[in-house]
């Protein structure tokens, strides 16, 4: 093989490496890359670079948080208006089918009944709220409890870290894994700590990051 042909072959293989690392090459391409890597240990060094790039790309994305609950509400509110010609839905069929059609198709009549039912729910909710306030009871919404209950973080563990050591670390920090593994071996954890100033939350995550024998990287998460 000439030097020029060898350079072309090397560049073609290098172009495939990101997908080799993410495991999304087809069998033929994967075999081609593995065959090349077996004879070219200097190209193998690139795999570590790509793993590092991937890990940070995952962190950068995961740290972005999620759309607000309001965004989903706005979307769901606008979806029915996007339905084509719903007033021509089937109205014949068995009684069960008619009930099902009534519940699923927003005909003008259905919309009126839905609006009436929603109004009843709103009035009942207001009445219950007034009763609670009048009796001096305190309450908290489920959303408030989950949001205020701890610190969320993204974490990747060292390859050599063993499961018992990770479990002990999680217990020590009163943390649990709530999501993952994501691409690159990233997990989302929640530390069940009382709400604290931001400086204390940062200090808590720094203490976690100092456990370098187990933790490769930890970052705060918005979720």
């Amino acid at each position, binding site marked *: 093989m000439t030097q020029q042909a060898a350079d072309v072959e090397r560049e073609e293989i290098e172009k495939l490496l990101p997908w080799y690392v993410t495991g999304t090459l087809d069998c033929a391409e994967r075999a081609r890359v593995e065959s090349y890597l077996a004879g070219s240990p200097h190209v193998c060094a690139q795999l570590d670079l790509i793993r590092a790039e991937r890990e*940070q790309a995952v962190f950068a994305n995961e740290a972005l948080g*999620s759309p607000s609950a309001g965004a989903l509400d706005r979307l769901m509110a606008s979806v029915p208006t996007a339905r084509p010609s719903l007033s021509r839905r089937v109205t014949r069929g068995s009684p069960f089918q008619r009930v099902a059609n009534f519940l699923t198709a927003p005909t003008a009549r259905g919309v009126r009944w839905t609006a009436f039912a929603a109004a009843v729910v709103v009035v009942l909710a207001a009445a219950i709220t007034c009763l609670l306030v009048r009796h001096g009871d305190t309450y908290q919404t489920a959303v408030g409890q989950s949001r205020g209950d701890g610190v969320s973080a993204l974490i990747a563990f060292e390859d050599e870290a063993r499961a018992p050591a990770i479990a002990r670390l999680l217990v020590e920090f009163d943390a649990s894994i709530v999501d993952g593994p994501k*691409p690159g071996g990233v997990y989302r954890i929640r530390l069940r700590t009382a709400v604290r100033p931001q400086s204390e939350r940062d200090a808590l995550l720094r203490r976690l990051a100092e456990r370098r024998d187990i933790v490769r990287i930890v970052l705060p998460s918005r979720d």
Partner: protein
Amino acid sequence: MSRAADEASLIGRIAARDMTALRALLARRQVRVFRYILRLVGNAAVAEELTNEVFLEVWRNAGNFDGIGSAASWILSIARHRAVSSLRKRCEESWDQEAADALHDMGDNPEVAAQKANKGAIMRRCLDALSPEHKGIIDLVYYHDMSISEASDVLQIPENTVKTRMFQARKRLSKLLKEAGIDRGWP
């Protein structure tokens, strides 16, 4: 049923106006679509609205999904189209230079000085400084786990161009890292 087949099935049910299927698809894909768009447009409020537009388009056009590619790549191709339309007036070349300049200009910031001790933080800052075109392919491959053919579907470009764009994005990343003081020895 595989995840891909499951999502294709959801699209089929959405085409039949099944709201439950739309909610299931949202639960799976909304956050990732939001993040994909946010990484391209850089504004959370705009990304939220564009994400909603994407799923409204899925709701309206689910019947057009051919099932040849994956549902994930079909949805992200809509997301990309929306994001690019939103960015149409911005020149990608100047944006890239603007972002790269910002990377240097922030060198005196104490927070940045602290970050310099952390290679990962520098890498993330350099990833952020890539052009939308380069950042887009990096995210598709590394975060959304898209194969070459899926990325080709999303970006509407040939597979060889996908490979070349990823290669160029990685080279650009190495250049930014080198300018930030990290020489990776590649390319």
